[in-house]
């Protein structure tokens, strides 16, 4: 495993129109609640992945996942602050996304105990790309109310910025060797 440190700088979200009065209900609040759920879900999943890597003695990737989790949690907190919500909105089970999980969340099946920082960043890149696509589609949809359109377009822009940042990070960590997942003491008995 690489001894090079994974990037540490968090992508900063621009502050969206701070101080402006926010409606407590309606399409804009609904959209922001959904954005909040998206960020929280991503933060929780990265934290889960970090725990898994800790358990499987992969501290470097664990640290990277924990960092990504903190970044997403910060984004979620900012939405709460911007909306003036004292408590998080209820993540309704009836919400449906384009896929079984919110766009910024990687499936549990996408990790491996021998994965390297590059793989973790690849996973994060896919998450950001999905989020950007999801938000851009909302921004483009003709039926989207103007306030939601503006917010979605702004968030899509932020996700695009994250994509660029992660692509930059990926250049700074070593690319895994072809046999990165070879385990000299595998859990499955070989012949």
């Amino acid at each position: 495993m690489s001894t090079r440190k994974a990037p540490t700088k968090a992508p900063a979200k621009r502050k969206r129109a701070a101080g402006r009065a926010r409606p407590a209900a309606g399409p804009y609040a609904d959209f922001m609640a959904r954005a909040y759920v998206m960020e929280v879900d991503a933060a929780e999943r990265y934290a889960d992945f970090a725990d898994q890597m800790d358990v499987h003695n992969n501290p470097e990737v664990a640290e990277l996942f924990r960092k990504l989790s903190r970044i997403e949690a910060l984004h979620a907190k900012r939405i709460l602050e911007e909306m003036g919500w004292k408590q998080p909105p209820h993540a309704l089970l009836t919400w449906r996304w384009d896929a079984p999980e919110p766009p910024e969340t990687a499936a549990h099946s996408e990790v491996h105990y021998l994965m390297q920082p590059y793989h973790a960043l690849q996973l994060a890149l896919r998450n950001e790309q999905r989020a950007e696509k999801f938000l851009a589609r909302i921004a483009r949809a003709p039926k989207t109310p103007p306030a939601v359109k503006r917010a979605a377009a702004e968030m899509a822009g932020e996700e695009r910025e994250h994509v660029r940042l992660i692509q930059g990070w990926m250049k700074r960590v070593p690319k895994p060797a072809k046999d990165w997942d070879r385990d000299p003491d595998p859990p499955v008995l070989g012949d």
Partner: protein
Amino acid sequence: MNAPATVAALTAQDFKSDYKPVWCPGCGDYTVLASITRALAALNLRPENVAVVSGIGCSSRIPAYTTCYGFHGVHGRALAAGTGLKVARPDLTVLVAGGDGDGYSIGGNHFLHACRRNVDLTYIVMDNHVYGMTKGQPSPTTEPEWKSKLSPGGTGLREFHPLVIALAAGANFIARGFSGDPSGTATLIAEAVRHPGFSFVEVLSPCVTFRPEQRAWKEAVHPAPVAPTEDPARAARRLMTDDGFNIGVLYKGSRPAFSPAAPKAPLSPSDLEKDFAL
């Protein structure tokens, strides 16, 4: 888009303990844990009012990963312990969880009779068609042709069909979920908990270590093409022709849940003496 009308009293995170799961990364059981905690939060339950009971196996570690009351019991006996708990403490929401080996082989007899008794609890089986904890032996739901170092040439045995058995034995709610769809599975679990009587939720939960080919399940699963039925005869026809990948609620019965008789006043020693008198 639905409005976030209510404020959550507790979130899914509040139902997760500080213990880190030791499952293999990629295991479907992580998502089932997430689905259970989401369902409990959505139901507005509190950890102290919920008990999670399990047997033995990878998935049976789940009680330790929640903040609810938990009982990690004997292999195959999770339903016996869960049934006893629910009858003694009907105020608790009881979830029983485990795997296909624990539930359908070692605990097969308890599974039949738990369905028949119809005690108001929810049984969640994380089915990966293999005994993962003991290094990959075939389980009752393993396909007959699946070959491994431990089953050369395959078992040649017809696999167990848990949903059909559950229906025949009297389960009051039958659903199938997929671990790759955590929100969908959480919705199924919440509905199962709400439904009175014995609710059975089978969750297809891939074992990426011993059955890596199960990663393809995400392409195989599909929503059940028909609405849930209350008619057991219709449900039986559907389940008998099921491809094993229909996801959703497949049967919602209306049989009243088992209700234990009110406890009688304890007998006095003189009453007992009368009973034993010759």
